[in-house]
């Protein structure tokens, strides 16, 4: 199978085959990351631009490292330093990037659909690094890649996503990705943090964490944002923690080998107890490591790479 798409915008639009292609392509890159000399040449002479309209440390850094490992030139623009401050529209930004012959753009934006907007208007490949509450495809891919190392099969795998499903791009991408690979996804949150028409997504819904936790193979915690509390979506952090925090006592109720995941950054002690985050069940740091390998795979494939090609001599 060969990669055909110019851009990576959503997981929803990917086939199972395309997802597997990315995951398989990531494997040799993981191996490269374990070497002393971690740089390979496939993107030599290519220019990648990190275009971040929303603050990010982890994702921007992860993409930068991935691009550098592939020998690409990478530049980062964030809203605080860009002409966005001067009122330039995204359309004009797109035209300027095109004029500067950038090859790939990694974009994060607080508006859903912004990467799609950009992708439709430039020849360069666009990678969605998170658009509003819509999707965050590379987060999903690195989660799948991490799970792949820890489970025999995705078929029938029971995954529970806990937290602010309504406002989460990570949840949306993972619901599509996991389901396409055969996993059974459930979500758990107070009703105010569940989307109004959740039935349209292939998930089961729980309001009670203690009831949901018992038979799950994977528990995926989402970061809870305090600003949601101010809008009256839940009364207090304390009450949220009582009902939805993954703490040591809940870990005892879960399956013995349950896998604990989190997209970061963690609010230690809020949605996830520090001890649980650091326990043997947690694969949170593996997620971060695999993030680089998966992003290398995405950059590589969008650049026209082939998974069977020999990457280095």
């Amino acid at each position, binding site marked *: 199978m060969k990669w055909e798409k110019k851009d990576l915008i959503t997981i*929803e639009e990917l086939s199972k085959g395309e997802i597997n292609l990315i995951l398989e392509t990531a494997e040799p890159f993981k191996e490269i990351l374990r070497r002393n000399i971690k740089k390979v040449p496939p993107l030599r002479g290519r220019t990648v631009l990190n275009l971040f309209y929303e603050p990010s440390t982890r994702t921007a850094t992860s993409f930068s490292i991935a691009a550098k490992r592939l020998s690409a030139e990478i530049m980062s623009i964030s809203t605080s330093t860009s002409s966005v401050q001067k009122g330039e*529209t*995204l*359309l004009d930004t797109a035209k300027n990037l095109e004029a500067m012959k950038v090859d790939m753009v990694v974009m994060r*934006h*607080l*508006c*859903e*659909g*912004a990467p*799609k*907007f950009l992708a439709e208007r430039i020849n360069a490949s666009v990678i969605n690094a998170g658009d*509003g*509450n*819509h*999707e965050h495809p590379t987060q999903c891919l690195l989660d799948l890649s991490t799970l792949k190392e820890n489970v025999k099969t995705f078929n029938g795998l029971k995954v529970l996503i806990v937290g602010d499903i309504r*406002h*989460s*791009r990570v949840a*949306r991408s993972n619901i599509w990705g996991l389901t396409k690979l055969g996993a059974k996804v459930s979500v758990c949150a107070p009703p105010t943090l569940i*989307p*109004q*028409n*959740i*039935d*349209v*997504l292939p998930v089961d819904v729980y309001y009670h964490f203690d009831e949901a936790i018992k038979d799950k193979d994977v528990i995926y915690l989402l970061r809870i944002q305090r600003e949601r509390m101010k809008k009256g979506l839940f009364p207090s952090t304390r009450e949220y923690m009582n009902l939805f925090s993954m703490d040591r006592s809940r870990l005892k109720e879960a399956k013995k080998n349950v896998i604990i995941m989190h997209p970061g950054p963690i609010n230690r002690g809020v949605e996830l107890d520090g001890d649980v985050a650091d326990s043997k069940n947690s694969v949170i740091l593996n997620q971060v490591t695999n993030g680089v390998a998966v992003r290398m795979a995405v950059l590589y494939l969008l650049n026209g790479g082939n998974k069977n090609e020999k990457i280095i001599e």
Partner: protein
Amino acid sequence: MKKSLNRLLFKNLHIIDIENQSFIDGDILIEDGKISKLGKIEDISEITKIINCKGMQAIPGLVDIHTHLREPGEEYKETIRTASRAAVNGGFVAICGMANTTPTVDTIGTVKYILERGMKINLAKVYTYGAVTKNLEGKELSEINDLVKGGIIGLSDDGNTIMDPTILLRALSYVKMFDIPIVLHEEDINLSENGVMHEGDMQTKLGMAGIPDLSEDTITYRDLRIAEYVNGRVHITHISSKNTLEVIEIAKRRGVRVTCDVTPHHLILNDTKIEFFNTNYKMKPPLRSEKDRLSLIEGIKTGLIDIIATDHAPHAIYEKEVEFNYAPFGVTGLETAFPVLYTNLVKNDKITIFRFLEMLNSNPVKYFDIDIPTDIKEGNDATFIIFSDDKEWEINTDLFESKSRNNAFLGEKVYGRIEYTIINGDIKLEKRKIDKKKKGV
């Protein structure tokens, strides 16, 4: 100096007869702005102009009760001139400007400015609403007597829902002495918050902030109860949901003096269109679910919905070609309403052409005191439109006389093309073209 008698003859038409709900084949003779003869006309002496309309149909002119003229204040989006050109290009012989211009239409001076510009441009007939409250702020009533004297056809704060029920109560009560309706855009802004699309299946997938139908039906209920309480006259504009329609149905049954309208886009499109974030599907109220759309179709069939109005809302290209969240709400409609409604409703037998004209001609005339004939009859003012229906065509921006391009039907294949728009015997649109000498106005 007296002008010599202008005698125009339109030949070989299929002419509607509203009174008898039928069509006749024949010719229309216009003399001095009036229809002087209908039927087979053999004597063609002293005719100024003969126009052969073989295969075409003549119907009364369309009336739009919800147009955003944008002038004064936002002339880069539209002017009274370009809106008038768009109107006659789309078969509309009368348009009614909303009060949200800059300045808002809350003084007699602005009313007169708009009406006089309309008359001077002399294409479609231009009417205007006045603001219910000063500067559309929902706080103090405008000097309504002044506005009525200036010639408004109704009052509306349009996009700004009057959130304080006491203000609406007083406005509806006060306006009773003038017998004009208050037109309401129903949206509880506390419930719609920062929403950009219908809260539903597609919104759940896309993650964008939603506008629940609840924001429309709950406040419609509130306002209809207020109208009932003071026996005031209200018109609910651009209703979008099944639940709102049910609230209106109940109110009508209780005898509340309420009428309502729906837009072409809410009748033909649903929220699945937003899948690829095209901002030409962003408007308020938002495109709703297929279930809602079907209930609106049912509403126009049963007569529960009285009027179809375009909510023609021009925006500059650069304002719309941005991230979906940042784009302004609204789409144009004057130039596409006829073909899309004719194709989707009349041509496929959802409604008859007679019911169609009730909603776009006779009901607007009846409820808003607009001076446009509602039939094509001898002795009537010669105000009517002629359309062809022989071949399918595609809507694209080349069609538009409007200054703006933000239309939700670009690329649609349609039937029904306006060929002539005639107002008081004056041909405003001829062979799909507006006379060049009218361009300079």
